[in-house]
């Protein structure tokens, strides 16, 4: 059986397959990534537990798993409605990098929750910390298929151990791995660069 895929990987893969490969396969490490992840774990460790308000229970740092789909991870926030059905809420602090990547990650959480709570989940929320607005996301069949397609794409990369070509487009300006990836740098020697050059010395 294939190893389960971490939910965080899906988001990276949907944003840019090369970003996924750099972080999860090449283990390229940047201060941004690292500090962000470190902070996330810190907040999770200290923010775990639950609270209740207006009949809605809020669970924090809930471990998630789907054996059927081969996914696992931790949900920042899951709300339990009065009827006991769960709704995932994904907190986004920075600029939205890619709408689709966020939605895929949220939907992947829902796939886990559906299996864990045995029920179907029609939608969830993305909460933008900066604007304090939450946006509803409907888990359409297309979105669900996108989650599984990303998972399969990741499995394929893990099998082939290949590093995908750079995206080299607008995404790169928002990418914390820009320096490590060098999406626009020539892969081979640039013009004028010749280690064997022996221009005569006057």
């Amino acid at each position: 059986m294939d190893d389960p895929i971490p939910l965080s990987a899906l988001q990276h893969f949907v944003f840019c397959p090369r970003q996924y490969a750099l972080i999860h396969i090449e283990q390229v490490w940047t201060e941004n990534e690292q500090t962000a992840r470190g902070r996330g774990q810190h907040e999770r460790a200290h923010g775990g537990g639950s609270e209740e308000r207006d009949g809605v229970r809020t669970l924090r740092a809930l471990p998630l798993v789907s054996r059927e789909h081969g996914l696992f991870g931790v949900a920042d926030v899951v709300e339990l409605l009065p009827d006991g059905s769960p709704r995932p809420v994904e907190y986004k602090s920075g600029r939205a990098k890619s709408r689709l990547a966020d939605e895929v990650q949220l939907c992947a959480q829902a796939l886990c929750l559906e299996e864990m709570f045995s029920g179907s989940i029609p939608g969830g929320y993305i909460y933008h910390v900066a604007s304090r607005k939450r946006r509803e996301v409907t888990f359409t069949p297309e979105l669900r298929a996108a989650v599984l397609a990303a998972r399969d794409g990741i499995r394929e990369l893990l099998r082939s151990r290949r590093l995908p070509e750079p995206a080299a487009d607008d995404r790169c300006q928002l990418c914390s791995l820009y320096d490590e990836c060098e999406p626009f740098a020539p892969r081979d020697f640039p013009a004028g660069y010749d280690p064997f050059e022996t221009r005569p010395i006057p």
Partner: protein
Amino acid sequence: MRHLLNTLYVQTQGSYLRLENDNVRVDVDGEFKTRLPLHHLDGIVVFGNVLLSPYLIQKLGRSHKPVTWLTEWGQFTARSETPVSGNVLLRVAQHACTCDAARTLAVARFIAAGKLQNQKTTLLRSAREAAGEDAPALRQAARDINAQIAVLPLAETVDEVRGIEGTAARSYFEVFSLMLRANRDFFWLGERTRRPARDPINAVLNYVYTLLAGECASACQAVGLDPQIGFLHALRPGRQSLALDLMEELRPVVADRAVVTLINRQQLTPRDFILHEGRTVTLTEDGRRTILKHLQERKGEEVYHPITGRKTPIGLIPHVQARLLAQHLRGDRPHYPPYLHR
């Protein structure tokens, strides 16, 4: 984005380092000396009898800041391994490349080419500043090195590459002293001697090279390369062959340049050396302090990197080169591009 952070060097014997909130606190003989925020550091290098508290060592490990232990005289003994240093696929690719004679040769050639080019650059720069008969001699040595660069592509084995590099090194060190403009009688380089150094220049070079090798080994580790598996340097137990490989290109422009500058500015003078009975030479603690300070300052100096096309602090060049090598080994780049200093 990787930022240039400071390396904390502690060479005062009997120092005690511990964690104090998110700071490193340094005490000497039970007295408070200094306190540095951890997030300004990318690693700690300690010489000889310096104590670190277990909490500090663990905190440094978790935040991917390696500790390097050197002897009091700067010889490498140990380095902590942090959790990030392990891309197993990269290591497998690195080992596969060293087992492939043609690929090893290609990498070794480029490393040697980078070193020779940078030797040439260093000599020519000194030639522009030199007076009298020194300039033509320096330029002639640069021409001799050019001749060696021209035969590098013809080398068919790594041994031949090493031979070419050795020939160039002789031309280079023969005129090394001509780059000096102060205390020339004292700073006179006979031949390269490793340990123990037989003259002051060798004592300085050995010291600076050890520090630079440490930086290169840290860079390998941070990128996930195995510092012991090299291409140009033969594999030998206990030798950080890859760190030495990466250092080759940087020796002339980082290490040698620093030595020349310190002597020419008379920041290093005969007073900084101890001449022992039986013709061996060591640096005084003050001398070592002067060198460390200068190297730390130079790390912040920005240079143009010909491959990334960006300005990069000198202190990050080993890291950039380690990453470029990793990209080549993992098939993301057809060649390993050495750093060519302008």
